[in-house]
């Protein structure tokens, strides 16, 4: 980057409106103190990195001459030829910053400073590399008044840049950064500093918690063991109590047996007393009861049978009455015999009529088959029909014959000749032409043959006319004859058609046999049909008479209540069957009456026998017998209970026992057993509670699990310690490698600085060393110099002030040269750094600056006239006025 123009809008001591046009090489500002040289360098830095904050509301570089705006602008060009204009003003409001390209377009800085954008450096690095002041020349790295953070950042950047670019050519990461990353990672794992080592601390906390958990788990397990021991004790107590309870139960059983024996003896005595009382009331045996019950049952059965017989007799009589009513069966049979005889006579007459009807029907069928008409239809034919039909047929045939004859005559008649009217016209033409020719010849005196020709034409015309007339008369006569014949034929055909129509009309209702019959045969058939119809009428009268007789017979039978629709024979048979059934029912009723009388007598005998049996038992009646029997059964039960009780009491039973004492003993045993059971239940409940508590304890994390978790954490701790030590080892070895590299492989930066030092000191020193990449980040790097190979290193602190200035100047110049090699060349702003140089080394240093000005822009600010004169004598130099 080369500054081309600087315009001051107002900045500290510098006059507002000052414009400086800079040369691309060496520029010299010669001004006395308090004229603004340092302010100018601050102005340049401020343009690219900001003017800094106000202090107490006032900016340090507020224009001395007044005015509200602080700032100005710079025009500069980059190595690639691009040009920009940078404007920065600080007024009452926020800072205004504009970066414009060659076309005056404002560029977006996206929050970065123009120096960072175009120079690739932060402010600290820029101040270290590009601006060299006397007051900070004693520092290898610009500290900006001891700002540790800035110094550290600049140092880190410088170191990283050095190793990255100058030492490793891009294949190895910045070892300083790597070392710092490792250090941070390591300190994150473990650090004596409690503010660090959070991972290790957290793990330690986890281990502590795991140990606590283990202790708790062990305590729980110990508690569980104690509870189990308690449980075992309780189980022992329970066993003892159960043994006691078993003994108590045995005592209880014995007491219960004693009480039962006493109760049994009392019960036996009571049973004996009950038996005696019942025996005194009287007992009945089962056989006596059975006999009495049997007699009672048999008499009741005889009564029942008698009642049944009487009921059956009444039922039979009712049935007989339903069959024949109140008639006597014998009289009714005689009446039925008379009716049967009448019925037989009617049947014979009916069969005779049936045969007669069959004969008539056969003759009628024969006539019907012969003539296609029923006899009634045949008889109904008109008497003149057979011969009338024959006359009609003959008349029609005669008319047809006359029509055929007329048509034949018409066919023999010639047709009329044609009219030939043209002959009549030709005749008239010939006649008129002959007349005209004759007249014209007569008056014109034509030759005679004209007259002759005229005469011929007239004659010819007359001849043609006559011939046409004759022909016309002949044709007229022929047409008249044909018309007469047509009329005659037409009349004959119409007459024939009328006759045929009449014949057809008369024949239509007649069957074909009648239509084609011979008139004589038809007349005979008609006569037979008339006779047959008369026979049928007589037969029907006889039939009706038979039916009437049968109806009267049927009416005679309906008195028995038979269905009138049944056949008379069936009705007669039914009447006969009913009469028979009624006779049988009446006979059965008489028999049943006799049986009822017999059963009634038997029942009376049985009742007498029962009364005799009860009297022998000394019992009044059957209920008394039942009660005696019940008492007997009760006595048997009591005896059985007494025998069973005696058996259970044993053969030695009978000793006196006190039931009350036995009951008291039993109560005592029951109370003891209950008390022991209660105690056992309590123990069981306590054991269950213990088991529950133990289960609850076992559900928590076991000591083994806690120990496993602790072991796992221990493994993690070991891994953490191993990683920590690995990083420490790597870090330490890297540090050693970097130191080795610094000492044994002098980087090009220091080689370059050494070369500058040799030039600046006139060869007094040719080697420069620094711990720039080794020293603590917040400490200024140390410098040392050596006069030549094999000479001792001399720390900068023991060198003269002038030599130290030369040493640091050369290091800063080398830094600028190294770091910008291949990149944007930075301008060098030298603010009177050469004041402590003697004349010889001043000349050498200015000569060095002239050489550097060939490669980058140099702005030398000095208040020393002889420096200005000296450098102007050494190389081209643009003088800039700031007053």
């Amino acid at each position: 980057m080369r500054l081309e123009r600087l315009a001051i809008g107002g900045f500290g001591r510098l006059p507002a409106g000052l414009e400086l046009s800079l040369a691309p090489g060496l520029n010299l500002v010669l001004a006395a103190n308090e004229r603004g040289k340092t302010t100018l360098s601050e102005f340049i830095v401020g343009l690219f990195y900001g003017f800094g904050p106000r202090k107490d509301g006032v900016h340090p570089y507020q224009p001395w001459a007044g005015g509200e705006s602080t700032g100005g602008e710079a025009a500069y060009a980059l190595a690639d030829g691009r040009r920009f204009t940078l404007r920065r003003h600080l007024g009452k409001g926020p800072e205004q910053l504009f970066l414009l390209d060659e076309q005056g377009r404002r560029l977006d800085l996206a929050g970065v400073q123009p120096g960072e954008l175009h120079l690739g450096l932060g402010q600290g690095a820029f101040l270290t590399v590009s601006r060299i002041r006397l007051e900070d020349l004693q520092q290898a790295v610009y500290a900006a008044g001891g700002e540790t953070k800035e110094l550290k950042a600049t140092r880190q950047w410088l170191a990283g840049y050095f190793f990255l670019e100058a030492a490793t050519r891009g294949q190895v990461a910045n070892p300083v950064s790597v070392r710092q990353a490792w250090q941070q990672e390591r300190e994150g794992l473990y650090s004596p500093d409690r503010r660090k080592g959070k991972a290790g601390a957290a793990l330690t906390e986890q281990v502590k918690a795991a140990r606590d958990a283990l202790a708790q788990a062990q305590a729980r397990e110990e508690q569980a063991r104690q509870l189990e021991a308690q449980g075992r004790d309780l189980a022992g107590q329970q066993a003892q109590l159960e043994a006691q309870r078993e003994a108590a139960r045995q005592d209880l059983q014995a007491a219960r047996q004693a009480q039962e024996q006493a109760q049994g003896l009392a019960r036996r005595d009571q049973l004996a007393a009950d038996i005696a009382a019942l025996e005194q009331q009287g007992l009945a045996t089962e056989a006596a009861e059975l006999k009495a019950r049997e007699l009672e049952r048999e008499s009741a059965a005889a009564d029942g049978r008698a009642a049944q017989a009487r009921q059956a007799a009444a039922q039979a009589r009712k049935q007989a009455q339903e069959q024949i009513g109140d008639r006597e069966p014998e009289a009714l049979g005689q009446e039925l015999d008379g009716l049967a005889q009448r019925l037989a006579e009617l049947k014979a007459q009916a069969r005779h009529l049936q045969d007669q009807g069959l004969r008539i029907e056969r003759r009628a069928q024969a006539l019907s088959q012969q003539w296609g008409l029923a006899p009634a239809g045949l008889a109904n034919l008109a008497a003149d029909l057979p011969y009338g039909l024959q006359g009609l047929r003959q008349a029609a045939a005669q008319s047809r014959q006359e029509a055929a004859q007329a048509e034949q005559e018409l066919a023999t008649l010639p047709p009329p000749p044609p009219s030939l009217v043209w002959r009549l016209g030709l005749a008239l033409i010939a006649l008129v032409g002959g007349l005209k020719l004759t007249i014209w010849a007569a008056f014109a005196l034509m030759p005679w043959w004209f007259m002759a020709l005229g005469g011929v034409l007239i004659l010819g015309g007359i001849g043609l006319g006559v011939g046409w007339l004759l022909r016309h008369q002949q044709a007229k006569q022929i047409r008249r004859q044909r018309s007469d014949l047509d009329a005659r034929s037409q009349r004959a055909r119409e007459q024939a058609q009328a006759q045929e129509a009449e014949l057809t009309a008369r024949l239509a209702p007649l069957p074909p046999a009648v239509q084609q019959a011979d008139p004589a045969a038809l007349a005979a058939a008609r006569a037979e049909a008339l006779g047959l119809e008369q026979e049928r009428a007589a037969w029907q009268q006889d039939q009706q008479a038979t039916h009437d007789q049968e109806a009267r017979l049927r009416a005679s039978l309906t008195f028995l209540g038979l269905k009138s629709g049944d056949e008379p024979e069936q009705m007669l048979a039914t009447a006969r069957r009913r009469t028979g059934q009624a006779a049988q029912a009446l006979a059965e009723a008489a028999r049943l009456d006799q049986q009822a009388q017999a059963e009634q007598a038997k029942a009376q005998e049985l009742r007498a026998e029962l009364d005799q049996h009860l009297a022998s038992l000394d019992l009044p009646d059957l209920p008394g017998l039942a009660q005696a029997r019940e008492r007997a059964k009760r006595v048997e039960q009591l005896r059985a209970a007494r025998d069973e009780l005696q058996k259970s009491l044993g053969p030695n039973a009978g000793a006196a026992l006190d039931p009350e004492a036995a009951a008291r003993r039993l109560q005592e045993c029951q109370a003891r057993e209950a008390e022991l059971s209660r105690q056992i239940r309590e123990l069981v409940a306590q054991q269950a509670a213990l088991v529950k508590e133990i289960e609850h304890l076992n559900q928590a994390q076991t000591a083994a699990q806690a120990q496993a978790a602790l072991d796992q954490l221990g493994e993690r701790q070991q891994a953490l310690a191993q990683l920590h030590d690995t990083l420490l080892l790597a870090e330490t070895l890297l540090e050693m490698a970097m130191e080795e590299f610094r000492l044994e492989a002098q980087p090009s930066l220091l080689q370059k600085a050494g070369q500058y030092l040799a030039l600046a000191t006139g060869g007094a020193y040719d080697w420069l060393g620094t711990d720039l990449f080794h020293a603590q980040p917040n400490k200024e790097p140390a410098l040392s110099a050596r006069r030549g190979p094999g000479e001792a290193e001399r720390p900068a602190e023991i060198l003269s002030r002038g030599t130290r200035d030369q040493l640091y100047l050369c290091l800063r110049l080398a830094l600028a040269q190294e770091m910008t090699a291949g990149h944007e060349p930075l301008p060098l702003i030298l603010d009177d750094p050469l004041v402590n140089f003697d004349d010889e080394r001043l000349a050498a240093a200015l000569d060095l600056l002239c050489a550097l000005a060939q490669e980058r822009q140099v702005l030398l600010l000095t208040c020393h006239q002889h420096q200005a004169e000296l450098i102007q004598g050494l190389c081209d130099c643009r003088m800039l006025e700031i007053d």
Partner: protein
Amino acid sequence: MASLIVLHAADLHLGGPVAAPDPAIASLAANARNESLDRLLTLSRQENVRLVLLAGDVFHAAQPPLTAVLALQKALAAWRDMGAVVCIAPGNHDPWLPGGVWASWPQGEGLKIFDPQGNGLDLPELGLWVAGAAHQSAAVQEDLTPRLPAPLAGRVGLAVLHASLERSLAGTSHLPYAPTRLESLTSGPFAFWALGHVHIPHEPVPRRVVYAGCPQGAHFGEPGPRGAWLIRLQGAAVETEFVPLAPLVFADLAYDDLMPLATPAQLVERVRGDLPSAAPAWPCQVCLRLGLSGPSPLWRLWQRQDPAELAAALKKELGLAGLVLAAEGLCPPLDPAALAQRPDVLGRLLGLMQRAEQDEDFLAELEASLAAGLHPDSQRLSRAERLARLRGLLTPARWRVLQGLWQGEGGHAA
């Protein structure tokens, strides 16, 4: 003549935890021990086992939780219903203590719990004599084998004991409780020794001395198939068969030679080849801890993608129930020895690491300079232990160096 089948198991650690380093297997892990016990029952039923030998540490603690006690009660009832006799020799985790779980355990039919004095159980119907002894404390230091009564005449002797054989303890974290010597076992009158304590199933003397191992591994420190043994006896002849039963199998794989693996598929293939395979009859879920470290072409992949997503994809591809993936040690696929020749800081750093590995004096200087800054756990170590620790840390430190510093080809973006 049919074989008599004996089930030999040990170190059931009922009531003990099973680690769930991946939350996805929490439920599986919580139920794994009981499930393995159920599988022992199923195996017994399938094989018509007549005798069950449980060689100690049936419970994880001397006073086990009630759930564990109930689980064993249920199992013993099932074995009794099968007609199998169960013999238990309590171990150091569940010693026979007066008033303890074993002393108060009801001695039912078909169950023999050996006490510290040593007992024998005559099984004439099987032609066997089973002898055993219990641990009487959590840290028995004496050899218990002399306490075992010799077999009766005409009986085949079987011994069941929770004991330590020096050779079997090598490389394990087991403490040498009830120590004994292999010669003591093989020279004795017993045809078969059913041992417990070492959780790795193996046969110090094939068909004669067998460590059952645990039926269920507890954590990544107990990887691989775990189960029980079927012992087939035909007279005095013994055949042994290990049956992997564990429903949850831990696997712990660590690879630091990943340069040949250029793709995730190759990594999956290699892991799959190294995973334990389950027996078809006893399906198991696998929880894998996979450590990836050292130079690897996969480094780039791990830089670009979310490690959690990569772990999830790997888990799915391998069909794992759980996965703990430690890939922090992956670094760019570089040769540290070649890089150590570079003149820059990285080369010098790797050179210093080589020197620390080879030069004891330099390592000692390094330890002296680092001692004050080491983690307190390391500071508590002796100097020799710290030196050994530092030597061991050089390799992971080298991977960290490559991760952090290298920005060239294969490294992370600058």
